[in-house]
């Protein structure tokens, strides 16, 4: 195993471009992310947020540019220079991916407990008792009723499904978690609880997260830093409170001034 320096970047993105035919979905994106940092990516629909997230999480090879990740096995390496097998292993062992719709991130045909235990099985655990104990532990950590561990996710509410998905994506101790609109489909009361939960988990586990959202409020409460995207370009990048309180770019100023006040 390669010793990773704790003060170096965990993820380093260099001049990443992605084109769908002539259409630029992401243009010249560069940034670094360290352990314990939460990066928010904001922008309107179609601005390239999700494409960027898919490139960063190895699901989509960028047209050009590099995505360097400090993995336990390979050190800081461009994930697209690795073999597919190594990339899949990094994804399985060191990443989590929380989908906007829990149905995309859960196996609806197996129980909640099996959903949470799956990453352990994928990473080689072959002891039922250990998996069961850790699944129960994670059920409790994300505030799900442990009595329902053997129920299918479809019997869970939207908020419970999303918590199940979060447990499933953290149980194996990843160093980086990708979240695509994690609170998107939830009503506001559930959203707040979930935001607090995610913040506490990220803090306790010292992991880094990249959160795509179009909700400025969510971004303000969760993210340390923001990347503002418009038509495939990063128009602004900085500390969350600085970007939102003193936006420099016209688009960010428009975005911030468009937030509804209650």
């Amino acid at each position, binding site marked *: 195993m390669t010793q990773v320096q704790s003060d170096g970047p965990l993820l380093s993105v260099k001049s990443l471009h992605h084109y769908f035919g002539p259409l630029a979905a992401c243009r010249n994106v560069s940034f670094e992310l360290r352990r314990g940092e939460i990066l928010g990516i904001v922008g309107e629909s179609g601005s390239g947020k999700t494409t960027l997230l898919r490139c960063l999480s190895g699901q989509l090879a960028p047209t050009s540019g590099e995505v360097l990740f400090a993995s336990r096995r390979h050190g800081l390496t461009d994930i697209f220079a690795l073999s*597919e*097998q190594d990339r*899949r*292993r990094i994804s*399985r062992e060191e990443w989590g991916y929380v989908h906007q719709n829990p149905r995309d991130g859960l*196996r609806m*045909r*197996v*129980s909640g*407990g*099996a959903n949470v*235990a*799956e990453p352990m*099985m*994928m*990473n*080689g655990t*072959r*002891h*039922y*008792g250990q*998996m*069961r104990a850790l699944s129960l532990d994670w059920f409790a950590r994300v505030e799900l009723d442990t009595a329902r*561990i*053997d129920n299918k996710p479809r019997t869970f509410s939207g908020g419970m499904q999303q918590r199940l998905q979060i447990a499933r994506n953290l149980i194996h101790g990843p160093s980086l978690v990708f979240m695509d609109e994690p609170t998107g489909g939830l009503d506001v009361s559930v959203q707040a609880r979930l935001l607090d939960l995610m913040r506490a988990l990220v803090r306790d586990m010292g992991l880094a997260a990249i959160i795509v959202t179009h909700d400025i409020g969510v971004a303000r409460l969760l993210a340390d830093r923001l990347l503002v995207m418009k038509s495939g370009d990063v128009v602004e990048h900085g500390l969350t409170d600085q970007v939102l309180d003193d936006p420099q770019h016209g688009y960010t100023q428009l975005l911030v001034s468009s937030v509804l006040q209650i």
Partner: protein
Amino acid sequence: MTIANQSNRRAYNYAYLDEQTKRMVRRAILKAIAIPGYQVPFGSREMPVPYGWGTGGIQLTAAIIGPDDVYKCIDQGADDTTNAVSIRRFFARVADVATTERTQDASIIQTRHRIPEAPLGPGQIMVYQVPQPEPLRGLEPRETETRAMHAYEEYGLQYLSLYESVAAFGRIAGGAGYPVLVDERYLMSPSPIPKFDNPKLHQSEALHLFGAGREKRVYAVPPHTDVRSLDFEDYPFEVQSWDEVCGLCGCGESYKDEVILDDAGNRMFVCSDSAYCGDRRVAGHAGPMAGHALDGLATGDDNTDDDAAAVGIEA
């Protein structure tokens, strides 16, 4: 070729399939034997029976059978069920082979649900009719993804089904098509044989060929290959067992079928392998229900069994 040329009277080529098709299937079989447990795609043909009735197994048999072979075909362990009888008659007719019900005498045994109780020896070939060759399919619907999983040996997903079973029943309950790891490399579904038969695959003297007609896949377990049934460290693999002995032959070790006798809840257990059970009764073994309970039919029954055993090899 000589055989095909000889039979001018025949409406079909020897063993039904044309020679090019048989070559293609044989090439797939050779590749499957070379990579134990790996699913080899092949150009499955339309057969004169519907998918699900054994088209994969029939094509494999047709590709490997010759006039010197002795052919046995079972369905649920029995030689005398409609499917088994029809397929046996099919090959007797199109391949001019001798057929048998005795496991020891057969060179090719086609099956769907069982591996016979009698131990298999060198030179014997088991041909399995497989409905779904992909053990991961129930958990992962994408073929591209399951192929990647096989390629990279990512088999953690298969344990999900075992986990679910232990969570629900307190033990690994799955009865048939229980997943195995072949030669510590490829995950394989052993057709829908009961897990009772899984240990018979391990280091078997015989060659095992699996054919899925609809899914167009062939895979194999060559003789003397390690076959390990998946399990958890704290829930080791176990086969089924029965408290009852066979009602007819009294056998305690064999795989049993449960037979409901009336509306009052009376039932009996009998060996699922009819040839094995018959052999035992000829050898003088008798179960608690042999010779009584079915009084009126008892004599006739015994005669039939004796006949079957005496005939041995059908012409």
